[in-house]
């Protein structure tokens, strides 16, 4: 099994491209190196794209927080942790600010398909959802690293109902 190289410098990346595009490689070893280089490039580019999307979302959140000026700074910190911890398979949310200064993360597929989660100044996440006629609310604990399973399930349920409008993280 090939392992992704965690860091690639500019020269290392260029060299990797040269290896991956070496059409003269004919021996099995050379072809294996070429395949591995292509794989590493693919993983690297995917992770860059994913990180870029999260970075853009965090910037968007910071801009909204700066505009509102009522945002709790601890809530902002936890919301950023939440975004970073969000698995890459989960779409990124939209943001809004609640009257109490907490941050609302909303996954809106349609008018009647919404999952909304509030990040406040503690480690408990208040969330609610509407999925057609199904609705409810609950609270889950967030340790700063692992998104609670119930939250993942709730977002996924909304997002998988034909989610053309979601931005994938």
């Amino acid at each position, binding site marked *: 099994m090939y392992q992704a190289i965690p860091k690639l410098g500019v020269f290392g990346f260029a060299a990797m491209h040269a290896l991956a595009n070496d059409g003269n490689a004919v021996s099995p070893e050379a072809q294996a190196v070429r395949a591995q280089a292509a794989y590493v490039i693919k993983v690297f580019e995917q992770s860059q794209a994913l990180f870029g999307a999260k970075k853009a979302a965090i910037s968007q959140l910071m801009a909204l927080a700066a505009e509102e000026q009522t945002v709790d700074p601890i809530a902002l910190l936890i919301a950023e942790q939440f975004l970073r911890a969000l698995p890459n398979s989960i779409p990124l949310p939209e*943001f*809004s600010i609640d009257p109490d200064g*907490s941050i609302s993360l909303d996954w*809106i597929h349609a008018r009647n398909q919404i999952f*909304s989660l*509030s990040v406040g100044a503690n480690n408990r996440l208040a*969330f*609610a959802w509407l999925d057609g006629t199904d609705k409810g609310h609950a609270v889950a604990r967030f340790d700063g690293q692992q998104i609670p399973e119930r939250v993942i399930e709730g977002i996924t349920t909304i997002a998988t109902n034909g989610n053309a409008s979601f931005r994938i993280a």
Partner: protein
Amino acid sequence: MLPSGLPEIVADEENLARFLTSRGHFNSRVVKPAAFMPDIEDRETSVFRHGSEPRDALWAIGDEHAAHGRTIHGAAIIKAQSVRSIRLDVFPDEPPPKHSAIRNWPWTHDDPDLRKAEHKELAISLANDAQLLKR
């Protein structure tokens, strides 16, 4: 009759306007739940008894009585009946003219986070029924 000339009871079929002073409270298609969340001090959501038309009069009310120095980006229009269908209620609260308040938000949970989650569920219902008007 109230000073504004409106009846003292908000009828089910009346339109209510919730002015949107945050860009985050709506997107290109819908009103977001946060737009309807109650203020934690007075435990109510401020609205005005006005529909989508006449539009100029709507924005004039927003600018004069709801903006408080902020920009009115739009309004969420909802029927009083939608509010009452989820066991909230709407009451006149003048002045300012035509001002009303969505009240009866449940405040029974001791756990503030669970209370907030319950409010979110209700706010989602209101957002679901609301018509988004962008300015």
